[in-house]
């Protein structure tokens, strides 16, 4: 088990380095300097050069990168070019918003997706077909459009739920839940059917397997076969799917936060993108990558626990 973690980390750590390096290189290739970004297009060349010198932005790119990396390892992601606030602090203050959204949507997806997929695999009939149709719809309908329709129906017309803003849990737990319902449901809804389809397919393939035939031929009760033998074999691929869904949910939070006006990492990313705040973009890119790497690491550990073959690999 430990060797899996170590092997993953051996891939993960260079991956973060590669991503940050690519982002750093791309931003230097894009032209325009930090000083220019701060002072605006009307500033004189001398004042831009002076600011660049002061910030160290006139040094060779590689030197700047190594310098950034040295600080990043200690958790210092530099200062925002636009606001002057430490990037790490800004990111940290916004994590709870994004995590509430992403984890809430993930729970919704797992509970409804796995349950309906299992029902479809066991009982058959309309459930399986419905899951497949919904999976196609979920992939096909743009989430930002669904969100706008949800806002229109449940927020404006029915006025059941707030249409924008985020209430921290510490301020009001009920307000927190209310502010999350619409974005979480819209974010998760398109992925539920996907997990259901994978759950159903994996369970069906296990049900058709030679070992299930042997178990049935040897008189095992159906509940033991389905909920123990089939479930453990289907769990691995479903878990992999769930981890991919989580990555896609993290991407989806960007749009949801924008639509529902939530101060999370996504809105930070969008505003940094429009303002060309390279330090913030750089920090966020590394942070998002780290998040994905951690999710994959946890998935690997869990898969290794579920599947002896994966552990040996």
């Amino acid at each position, binding site marked *: 088990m430990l060797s899996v973690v170590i092997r993953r980390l051996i*891939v993960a750590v260079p*991956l973060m380095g*590669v991503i940050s390096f690519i*982002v750093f290189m*791309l931003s230097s290739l*894009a032209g325009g300097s930090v000083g220019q970004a701060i002072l605006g297009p009307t500033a004189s060349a001398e004042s831009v050069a002076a600011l660049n010198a002061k910030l160290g932005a006139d040094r060779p790119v590689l030197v700047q990168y190594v310098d950034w990396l040295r600080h990043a390892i200690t958790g210092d992601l530099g200062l925002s070019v636009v606001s002057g606030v430490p990037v790490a602090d800004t990111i940290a203050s916004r994590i709870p918003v994004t995590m509430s959204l992403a984890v809430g949507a993930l729970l919704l997806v797992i509970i409804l997706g796995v349950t309906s997929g299992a029902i*479809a695999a*066991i009982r*058959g009939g309309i459930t399986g*077909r419905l899951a497949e149709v919904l999976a*196609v719809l979920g*992939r*096909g*309908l*743009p989430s*930002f*459009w669904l969100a*706008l*329709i949800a*806002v*229109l129906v449940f927020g404006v017309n029915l006025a059941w739920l707030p249409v924008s803003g985020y209430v921290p849990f510490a301020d009001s737990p009920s307000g927190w839940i209310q502010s999350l319902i619409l974005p979480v449901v819209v974010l998760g809804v398109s992925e539920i059917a996907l997990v259901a389809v994978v759950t159903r397919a994996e*369970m069906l393939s296990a049900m058709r*397997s*030679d*070992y299930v*035939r*042997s178990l049935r*031929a*040897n*008189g*095992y*009760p*159906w509940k033991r076969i389905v909920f123990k*033998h089939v479930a*453990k*074999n289907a769990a691995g691929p479903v878990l992999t799917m769930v981890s991919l869904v989580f*990555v896609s949910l993290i*991407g*989806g939070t*960007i*749009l949801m936060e*924008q639509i529902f006006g939530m101060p999370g990492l996504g809105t930070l*990313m*969008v505003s*940094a993108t*429009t303002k*060309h705040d*390279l330090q913030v*973009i750089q920090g*966020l*890119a590394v942070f*998002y*990558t780290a998040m*994905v*790497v951690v999710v*994959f690491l946890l998935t690997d550990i869990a898969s290794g626990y579920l*599947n*002896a*073959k994966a552990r*040996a690999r």
Partner: protein
Amino acid sequence: MSAVIEGAAIQEQSRRAAERGAGFLPRLVRQPIAVACSLVLLVIVLACVFAEWVSPYGPLDQDLQNTAAGPSASHLLGTDQLGRDILSRMLHGGQVTLLGIVQAVVVCAVIGLFLGLTAGTLGGWVETVAMRLCDLLLAVPGLVMLLVILGIYGNNEAAAMITLGVIMAPTLARVVYSATIAVREELYVASARVAGLTSFQIMRRHILSGVTGPALTQISIVAAVACIAEAGIGYLGLGVAPPAPSWGNLVTDAQNLMPISAWMLVPTGGIIAVVTLSLTLLGNGIRDAYMGRSSGSSKAFSWRALAVKVSQAASPAGGGAAPLGQESILSVKGMTVRLPRGSSEVTIVDDVNFHVAPGEAVAIVGESGCGKSMTISGVLRVLPMGAHVAAASISFKGAELTSLSEREMNAYRGTGIGFISQEPISSLNPAFTVGHQLEEAVRLHRGVGKGKARQIARELMARVRLPEPDAVAKKYPHELSGGMAQRIAIARALAGEPDLLIADEPTTALDVSVQCEILDLLRDLREQTGMALILVTHDWGVVAEACDRALVMYAGQVVESADVRSIIAHPAHPYTRALLQSSSVGIAPRQLLPVIAGTVPVPGSWPHGCRFASRCVLAEDACRTGPIPMVTLDEGSAARCIRTDVDELVRT
């Protein structure tokens, strides 16, 4: 014998491969949904490409009398806040989105196909490097990278869509790679290699035809994702700058218009949904077409469909069942097994009668596809989904199994009848240790506690002669050799102390030396416990070694039933004789084995008369006119042949 099977298998594979390549487009065209989606996409693409001529207004023309209006004769899809025609803006905006999709798809296809094909066909270090590269790229969060690129390059959509293509390439590469591997490993490529084709020719001929379907499916998914992503970028205001339209920023306009009128949300979001849905459904259609199934055929499968439909059939004509007064532990009368094929059913096992006496070992012999395994699966009711068993009677120790429910059957499965299957390793659950699985069987069948179950499991492992039971118990099935796994499977089947053990080709997948050990083990276990045995096999050596009586099956029917000794010495049916001649039993060493010309007719295309007639040297017109009955020959032996009289002459 095996030469017959392999020759037929290669022919079958080549035929299927040829069909897959040739039938792909016609099958796709026959799918109404796929065709409809293609047409919708074609119309939208043409309308957008020729927007200058097709659209009723310019994208920036304002009609200040009609701002934020709903659909009307002059503005088919209404107008926005500034009185601009929504339809015209959608058609012009579509150019931006479609261009983005094309950029992403082309980049993705070039990289993905290149990586997947080279890794799949060349193998070696290229394979390793390419797949590692894919793993690395898969870990990159897509939307975040898009925003990074847009943040750095400032509203440069082409850069963003090319990045998207790169990000999505590893998934395509993986799909192409595994399709290539699958084709590479299929028999027909192996036979092409034997035929002396170079590897480039192999790649062009076979691999490309095998890869096209999966790759096209994945590419249509990429296009759908690119459409959503491009629209998302536009919606966030990071794409083309207003007032130039794009599908994404039109949704933003609609959002701003929401307090006044919600109408604009419908066409602007709708067009994105229609395009992505069409692409997704087209992808599904392509998948169904290359999988060679009509859409919706596999949808009925579920655990519930595994419960075999059982019906009582009329009493059989007789023959083959236990003679009156003779005691039998299992007696099967007039059993027919049907499997679903498309919307109808096809008969796999046709009116089979046999019986097994207590302690007796009965072999079921025949070529692949004759219904041997399906016969025993019909008795145990462990058939593929949607199967149907009809029988006059299946009685086990006096109990009528046909009248039992699926749940009541479990009183007999495992404890009355034990089962071991052909592939020892895959018959064990890969997710649990073999010790756990054995103990589970003991607890289930004997109702004992954990400690006692462990002790009994160890005893069983000793009885099947497994060395080092404690070490073996901790292993997973894939860590065992085939012989060891088969011993575990036998031990599991013995956990319920069955009176009858059914073994479905228990030695076929094993090495010759291990085969002998397993056969010895089965014989010793029978001597110790007195249990009866049904052994399915195509190996006459196994029959002679381990069995008392043999049933020969051909095309779903029992064609001969007799004592093993007499059947080997004096086969009555021409098929039995041909089988014996093509096996090594009774043949001098180094003599060439004759093969039986032709192949077993496929279920569903069985002839009305004798099913072996087309391959039989003795066949005459009378053989083909009608069904051949079982003819009783000596005591306890019968054959489904009307020319057994001639046989005696031909044999010598």
